[in-house]
């Protein structure tokens, strides 16, 4: 597709609506996803997405708006998942899996009963640019704003509950309420993202930006902000890529958005590995109380080692109490007069 054609496409109403919806979805999904990753519930969004398929199918069967039925069923599913998880019945994850598959199978069955083909359902499973109406866009925007307002406004409390529920409970926070709030917000996010990314890939937009962001970030807030930025870029960029394929192909926006987010993860991952390795190497060695002079050990007394350690010698310099050790071939050299002590 030529740049002129792309510009022409961008001036179309349906494309502008889709871009707006993608931008807000890309901001809201990682915001809630950060709390899911913090609680180690990265797959919760996927489970809710599967359950929401039944909601969409019910909408198709009864002739009401699939978006509204999906919201209702997704919230019910999310609350059920949260209750099962909280009760901690013997096999929480198996119970969740049963719910996921039940949701997907039920959805496909009901769609069949409604006499709708797979094509109709596919727009919800993998997203569709052209299916958005004006009302859909306003709906998406309003819900995304609610999600962002609640997650950012309650951030300190949600963070406390997500990172240590027992401490939060003793501190007087209503842990069950906040856990349910996260689950319900995740369900709403799933239905918001349904039109752009699709139900089967929505969880990726909640989780992959967080995984990308946490490669570089050291704090929760920067992870959250970075994830929102990555999500917005991936959602808008993926939509444009999907739109710029030739007209005779049928590329849904969901896969391009997710693949773009994964590409951003793949690009930052080596940086994250390098950063973590560097910070581990620079970690000071602990000062032990039994570091007495009796342990005085002279390194390489045989003179095999003639290298002069210094600021730029290339060996990692690591603090050790009041001096610096140089990490070298699996041991630690501390300069001492004419020679190096082994630490």
């Amino acid at each position, binding site marked *: 597709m030529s740049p002129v054609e792309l510009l022409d496409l961008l001036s179309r109403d349906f494309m502008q609506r889709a871009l707006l919806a993608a931008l807000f979805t890309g901001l809201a999904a990682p915001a809630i996803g950060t709390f899911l990753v913090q609680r180690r519930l990265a797959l919760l969004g996927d489970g809710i997405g599967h359950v929401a398929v039944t909601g969409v199918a019910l909408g198709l069967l009864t002739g009401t708006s699939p978006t509204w039925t999906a919201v209702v069923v997704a919230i019910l599913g999310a609350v059920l998942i949260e209750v099962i998880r909280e009760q901690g019945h013997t096999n929480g994850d198996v119970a969740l899996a049963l719910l996921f598959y039940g949701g997907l199978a039920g959805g496909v069955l009901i769609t069949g009963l409604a006499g709708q083909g797979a094509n109709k359902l596919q727009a919800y499973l993998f997203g569709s640019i052209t299916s958005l109406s004006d009302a859909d866009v306003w709906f998406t925007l309003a819900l995304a704003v609610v999600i962002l307002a609640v997650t950012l406004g309650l951030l*300190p409390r949600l963070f406390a509950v*997500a990172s240590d529920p027992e401490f939060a409970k003793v501190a007087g926070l209503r842990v069950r309420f906040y856990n349910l709030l996260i689950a319900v917000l995740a369900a709403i996010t799933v239905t918001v993202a349904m039109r752009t990314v699709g139900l089967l890939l929505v969880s990726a937009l909640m989780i992959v930006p967080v995984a990308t962001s946490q490669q570089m970030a050291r704090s929760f807030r920067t992870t959250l902000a970075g994830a929102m930025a990555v999500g917005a870029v991936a959602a808008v960029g993926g939509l444009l890529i999907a739109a710029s394929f030739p007209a005779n192909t049928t590329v849904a926006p969901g896969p391009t958005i997710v693949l773009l987010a994964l590409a951003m993860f793949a690009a930052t991952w080596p940086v994250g590995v390098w950063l973590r390795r560097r910070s581990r190497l620079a970690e000071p060695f602990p000062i032990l109380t039994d570091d007495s002079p009796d342990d005085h050990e002279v390194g390489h007394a045989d003179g095999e080692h003639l290298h002069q350690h210094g600021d730029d010698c290339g060996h990692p310099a690591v603090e050790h109490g009041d001096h610096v050790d140089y990490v070298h071939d699996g041991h630690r050299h501390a300069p001492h007069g004419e020679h190096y002590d082994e630490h």
Partner: protein
Amino acid sequence: MLNTAGTPVVEARDVTVTLGGRPVLRGNNLTVREGEFVALMGANGSGKSTLVRALTGLLPLTQGSVLLFGTAVGDFRARHRIGYVPQRGTAAGGVPANVREVVASGRLTRRGLLRPTSRADRAAIDDAIGVVGLSAKASDSVSTLSGGQQQRVLIARALAGEPDLFFLDEPAAGVDLPSQLALADALRILSERGASVVLVAHELGPLEPLVDRAVVMRGGRVAYDGPPLPQDDVHGHHHPGGPAHDHAPHVGSPFDTFQSQTREGGR
């Protein structure tokens, strides 16, 4: 300080806790008075952690009552007055969080909903990080810290709310020696500021000089309550030497060695 006349901050009467149908704690009484430093000791599985969890309201009571500062634990709303350090190995979750963020969540008990952090909040958070000796690491991600340093972060989190009563569940378990010493320092500062401390510990180590009173649990009951005991008496499993008493006559063939002679001090 041992305080036999002070105001009680914890009053547990006839505390019985049932977990999954099994009575884990049976009819325990415990009173902690203002400013006391009480060590809750005992073997693994003796119920000391369960008792602390019942005192903080984390576990429902099957029978009996717990009063915190004179109010039943279920109705207790002045949560900023208690600080809790749960028994867990790590302060890190699935997402990186820095030391300051984790410690700041301990200040929530004194912050209203949607209210931004005030100057007093920030001062309390910085002070708490300083007391555990992690000021230089305040903006490091907790997942990069050692286990002992993470434990200190959890203690700083409990400190940040400036509580009068601390519950610490095995803070020294599996912690490196520098962190154990920093921990002892932090607890000494707390105690000197007049806080009451209930500490669950399997062994005291460097914390021993701080303890005013030891409560030893055995089989879900308080077995001893009084001045601290030497380590050996607490566990009391060390069988004295001397001839073992046999309940069955020896039937030994000529080349048998008697089991009681080869075993030394076994259980």
